[in-house]
Structure formats: C-alpha cells, structure tokens
C-alpha cells in the first residue's frame, strides 16, 4: 500500500499542524555571525561556526529571477515544462525553488511571492526511504497577489 504524499526530505519544511496554520521552511541561523541559510546546515557557510540553530523562515519573499525549464533533468519527478525561480527572503538568503500557480507571462522580477507546499510528482525510483510510486511534497513559491496570475 503506497503511503500518502510524503515530504521530499525531513528537514526542509514543516507542514501546518492546524487548518489555519502555515507551512514554514526550516533554515539555520549561525549563533556566531547571525547569517541565515536554507536548507538547514551543520556549519555556517560564512564563518564556519558549527553552532547553528534551526529556525522557521519567512513564508514570503521577492522574486529574484525565474525561468521555464523545457528539458527533463535526470532525476526530476514532475511535469515538463516547469517553472524554477530564485526567491529572496527577508533574512537575506536567496533560495532556489519551484514556482507554482503561475506561468512566466505573469511573473516579474521583484514580485512578492509566498511559500506553497505542493505535490511535485510521483517517484519512479526509490529515493532514500521514499518508495516508488509515492507522491512527493516539495516547497514552491506562488505569486502573493493571486489575481495577477490566475492559472
């Protein structure tokens, strides 16, 4: 029996525990220099301190760049073509992410985006503990102002 939608990894995001709650990306903040990173990590990229604290990250950011990928990368489980972007978080970190609920005709650099955890696709080979045929949840960002991008 295939399990229900499963997170792509245990340490990337938390799902809301109540119906009105929000998902959060899980980042790391360096206790030494204050730099923030996603995904979470053992050591600070900037100062190499290994005193890192896990913190929930802002669910909103601005769109730094985006593209519509039209070729299938070797391990990708979703549909092609698909949108990839870089979103800049208020904490300073820029993160690579799928973009959802939009196509590039309505996207603009600088647009406000919000986190949306979505089913990205189904595995066709085992990945870690995830069995074949499992729906995988991944982090995506969608335009904050829904009416600008009705897809």
């Amino acid at each position, binding site marked *: 029996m295939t399990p229900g939608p499963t997170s*792509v*990894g245990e340490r*990337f995001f938390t799902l809301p525990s109540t119906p009105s709650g929000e998902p959060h990306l899980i980042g790391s903040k360096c206790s030494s220099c204050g*730099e923030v990173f996603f*995904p979470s990590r053992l050591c600070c*990229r*900037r100062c190499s301190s290994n005193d890192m604290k896990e913190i929930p990250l802002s669910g909103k950011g601005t769109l*730094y*760049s*985006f*593209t*519509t*990928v*039209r*070729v*299938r*990368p*070797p*391990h*990708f*489980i*979703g549909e092609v073509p*698909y949108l*990839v*972007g*870089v979103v*800049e978080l208020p904490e*300073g*970190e*820029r993160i*690579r*992410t*799928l973009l959802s609920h939009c196509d*590039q005709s309505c996207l603009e*650099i600088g647009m406000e985006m919000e986190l949306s955890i979505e089913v*990205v696709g189904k*595995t066709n*080979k085992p*990945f870690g503990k995830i069995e074949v045929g499992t729906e*995988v949840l*991944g*982090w995506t960002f969608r335009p904050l102002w829904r009416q600008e991008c009705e897809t």
Partner: protein
Amino acid sequence: MRDVIVLGVGMTNFGRFPERPVAKIGAEAMLAALKDAGIAWKDVPVLYCAHAMGRTVDGELVEAELGHTGIPVFNVSNACAGGGTCALLAYQAVATGLYDLAAAIGVDQAPAGPLGGLFPPTAEGILGIDTWVAKYAMKMQRAVYERRYTLDQMAMVSVKNHNNACINLRSQYRIRMSSVEDVHKSRMISDPMTLYHCCPTSDGAAAIIFCTVEVARRHSKAPFIKFAGGALTSQIFIRGELADTRDVTVRAARQAYEISGIGPEDLDVVELHDNFTVSELEHIVDLGLCREEEVGPLMERGEFDITGKTPVNVSGGLLGKGHPTSATGIAQLCELTWQLRGQAGERQVHNPKSGLAHCCGGDEGMATFVHILSK
C-alpha cells in the same frame, strides 16, 4: 621552485563516441602528447588523471591501455576544472623537484542531455531545481534585467565561437552561423536560453607533459613554452550568491597574474570557460580583460574575434569545440601551446607571447583554475 616547460601536448577530436571505451580515448590523447614530446610512455614517472562522469580509476585504465608501468596514478574529479587541476598538480610535481617530468590527462565520455547525471539524486534533483540549464538561464535573465548584457551580445559569443570551431579540425561541431538570429531561432531549453547559448556534452581527452628545462633541452629546441603561473580556488561566502563563478575567477586570476608576473593587458590569447554564452561575457570581465560596461560593446565590435585585440576562445571554446568535462582544461592548454609555438594553422593569432586558460567546475563550491603559459 624550478621553471616548468611544456614538453608535449595532444588531444583527440571532441565528439560523441559511445562505442569507444574511455581508456582508449584517453590513451589516444596521451599517445599524441608523447609523440609531440618525443618521449615514450615508459619515460613518464607519474600521471594525474581527471575524469568526472561517475566512474573510477580511469587513470589506471588509461595506463593499462598504454602499457603497465607501475607508476603512481592520481585521479581527480573536479568537474570542468578537473583538467586544469591535474595540470596544476603535474606542474607542482616538477616545480617542487619531486619529478623531472610529469603527465596530466583529462578524459570524459558524457551521457546525452543535461549533465544532471554527474551527481546522484538529491532532494533538489527530485524537485528539478538544481539543473544547470535553469541556473544559467536565470543568470542570463539577471544580466538583461540589470542591463549588463543584451541577449544579442550573449548570442554573439555563440556566433564567434561556433565560427571559430569551423576552422578547428578537432571540433565536435562545425556549425557556421551568419548572425545572432541563428542562435535566437534554435530550440528553447529554458527561457530565455536557447540551444546555441549552451555548450554540448561531449566525449574526448587531452593530455599535457611537463618537464624541467634540462629535460626540455634534450628533446626540443628553444623557445620553450613555460608554465608561467597557475592557481586553483574554490568559493568564498557571498551573501545571496547560490553558486559563484565570478569572484572565484577574479581571485584565481589575481593569483595567477601575481605568480607569473604577467597581467591581463599582456595576454595575447585567452581560452576561458564558455559553458554558456553569458559566462564568456562575465569571465572576460572577471579576468580583467575589460570593464563590465565595456564587454558587450567590445564583443559587438569584434574585440574578442581571432583578428581582434584580445582573441578569446579561438579554438571554438566549449560552445563550439565541445566539452568533455575533464578534458577541456587541458585542451585549452593544448590550444595555448599550439598558438605560442605558431602551430595553430588557420586559427593562428599574430605572434602571441602569453596565453591564459580558465575553467569553473562544479556547483555550490565551484572549483576554478586560471593558468598562464608564456614563451
């Protein structure tokens, strides 16, 4: 540190040879380098071999193909910087006095399609967000958004390098382009990047043999081609920069210029890492060949053509000549050597005295080398 001379260089054609074993491709390049050097495989006391496509002990397999000699063989996996990494190791082996002669080789055989197969699946791979075509398409988009380069200027890099590749007998492709429209019309890979903004994946090998001045004198005549200076760097932290290729190049170049005593204004020929068109424009600036605001207009005016003031990628570069990942860095050194010797045929640049090779390899940490050869 002793002076180190390029005794011999050799490379295979670049192309797709899926039926040829990797060891044979590598051996072909080494045999060409040995012939160029006027020595035998038995004369090589140490081998540094770069390969990146998920195999192992490729260096020993090449050695076995050439004849077992029991020498130490070091294998290096530094992605596109692998060849240059091995060249640096071979240089260091001779410069420090460990050996009087050392050989470096880069060999790879690629799967078709985007190079995600280089790395095993990760969460980012499953989600499709780590693909290089997306990363570089977004670099192109930012360059246009920030008004650094236009799509036409980026396309011009492809036109130049593909046309240069037409006169390089070893090129994977000979695609003559008449204008940037040839680039714009090609298949869209990841908006705004079309196919001809991307280098291909390729099979091939290149080899280089270094030695001391004394050994060089026994086998060839002056003027000798000297390894004037080289550097290997990885990333430093830059907030918001997901995979830096620019600062890492600036620092490697600065070190190479300092060690060699040769500056960017002295360079007569440059082979740099044009994995995508935007990279060539960025790296021309990173290497100190011109300022950021100048590179687009200078590209338009033919400054970097074979006949221009600072010829860049006269071999055709990665875009035109092809890109067997680990071979490329040494293939760049082959081109510089032929140019400095006056053996580059139709691609010959007028009377060059020094040249620079550069590649960035990998991801999130970005191995980068800059090497300078001089006469």
